[in-house]
């Protein structure tokens, strides 16, 4: 009986069924979180959420316009750091270097990718906040930018390697110099993929809270000077979530819904825009 064909077939079917249940369990949290976000968040998202500053405790209403704007400002600053370093580092990995040297650089980038985001907060605190004696938007942007570097570098490399070698050879055969070939032929061909890599990295750091806790710090008002503390959506969600007030909890759910919708939107957009080949690499 134990090794009969029927028993082996049954065992195979049982394994399929069990692994299917595991797959369902893995995506269950997504469904649970998203449904709850819609239920608790949708009722609190309204016009004033996008146009008003946070109200003090006890005053109903108010919004997070400063935090939404602050998040975008921080992302802009982060891009200033992360994009040039990440993209051109990726160019080096794809176009120059030796096999062994690049293996090592790739290795270091992947290890760096695993550094907990809170550590970046501590490092930038020591590097910027202590030196200039103030929490600032610059510090927050720098911390997020550091996180983006290895992400963008590795995906840019993968995207550039998809450009057929014939393009490079054809360009070089015309006597065009190496760097012009890279910039005008290789990078231009892969521009969609590079933009995708940048967008995905931005979507990833847009939800980061830990590196901003003691760099950007948060702010209940508008930030008029980037060397001052600035509000950010994830920070605001965190401080409202751990507060004892029901009103603020509702605001936290609203903020969470807005943040998740923005992040999902970028992720889905990116997957629509890119060709199948690029999408697989990312």
């Amino acid at each position, binding site marked *: 009986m134990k090794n009969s064909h029927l028993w082996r077939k049954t065992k195979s079917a049982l394994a399929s069924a069990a692994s299917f249940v595991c797959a369902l369990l*893995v*995506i269950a949290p997504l469904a649970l979180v998203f449904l709850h976000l819609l239920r608790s968040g949708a009722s609190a998202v309204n016009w004033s959420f996008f146009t008003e500053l946070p109200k003090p405790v006890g005053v109903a209403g108010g919004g997070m316009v400063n935090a939404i704007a602050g998040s975008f400002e921080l992302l802009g600053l982060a891009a200033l750091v992360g994009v040039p370093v990440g993209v051109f*580092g990726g160019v080096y990995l794809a176009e120059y270097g030796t096999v062994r040297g690049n293996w090592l650089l790739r290795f270091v980038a992947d290890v760096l990718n695993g550094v*907990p985001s809170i550590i970046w907060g501590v*490092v930038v605190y020591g590097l910027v906040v202590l030196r200039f004696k103030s929490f600032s938007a610059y510090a927050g942007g720098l911390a997020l930018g550091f996180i983006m570097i290895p992400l963008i570098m590795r995906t840019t490399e993968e995207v550039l390697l998809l450009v057929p070698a014939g393009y490079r050879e054809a360009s070089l055969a015309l006597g065009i*110099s190496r760097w012009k070939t890279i910039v005008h032929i290789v990078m231009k061909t892969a521009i969609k993929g590079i933009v995708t890599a940048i967008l995905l990295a931005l979507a990833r750091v847009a*939800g*980061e809270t830990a590196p901003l806790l003691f760099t950007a710090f948060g702010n209940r008002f508008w930030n008029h000077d980037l060397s001052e503390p600035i509000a950010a959506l994830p920070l605001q969600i965190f401080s409202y979530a751990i507060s004892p007030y029901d009103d603020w909890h509702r605001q936290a759910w609203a903020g969470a819904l807005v943040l998740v919708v923005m992040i999902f939107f970028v992720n889905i957009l990116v997957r629509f825009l890119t060709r199948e080949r690029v999408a697989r690499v990312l």
Partner: protein
Amino acid sequence: MPIAVAPERPAVRSTIDRMAPPSGLGDKVFKWFTLAMALAVVALVFLVGWQLARGSSLAIHRFGFHFLATSTWDPVAEQFGALPFIYGTAVSSLIALIIAVPLSIATAVYLTELAPLWIRQPIVSLIEMLAAIPSVILGLWGIFVMIPWLRDHPFPFLKKIFGWTPFFSGPIYGVSMLAGGIIIAVMILPIITSVSREILRSVPNLQREAAYALGATRWEVTRIAVLSYAKKGLFGAVILGLGRALGETMAVTMVIGNTPQIRASLFAPGYTLASVIANEFTEATTDVYLQALFEIGLVLFGITILANLLAQLLLKTMGSTIKSGAVQ
């Protein structure tokens, strides 16, 4: 998401290097510029190490190795020991791995070996969406949905059945080491699943075909030809997940209870290395306090770097095994 296993690289670069070695000023400048950018990753590793060591030099000098072995955390008396946090990080990550590893690997197996083709891509997309949910939002859900549910249903049930063991005894608050472990598990499910999936996909089809030719069933093919072949890579995926679990901050901070104590019961609140930094950094009023938190950061950086080094080594050498395996 960078791919874990390096894909086959076209051998065109050497031809191009021979055809057009970098020449002229423009080429030189561009090459050195991109090299400098690529070296930034190396510089960043040193920058992190240096900043953390510099920020904690006084604390290291003052507490020495006792810092890692003392369990008093008393900012008022300026007594600092990291043991409760090391314990909390270890236990919560262990719980997370116990929950997440079987689920993720089974899901990866389902997605590469057993599932009908049409269902694979939708599930992969959903897992990518789960990975995109920010930690703070998972924590928000944890506080208001998961904790109340755990407190009212699964926790009393566990206590009734396993209450005689020290791990499931004592009062139930909801916020607890177990809740922290569960939320970390949710955070690392997507990464272990997607890396495991890449690993399984890189197993050469020849392996499967050989087993099918011997008359094996689908599950037998998976077990004998695929899983045993991919063991090393799957271990790498698990260690990578461990690295993420150790450093997970926001969601854990919101559900673990943030109490620096060492209790056998998993229902008791705990504290992790990452969450003590997140919670107390801006409150650190004295120099020693801040220094101690920097040192906690140094410890956390040390163990996550070790975990990631090990994981990447396993994953990258798995890639080369595959290549040599394909040649045979």
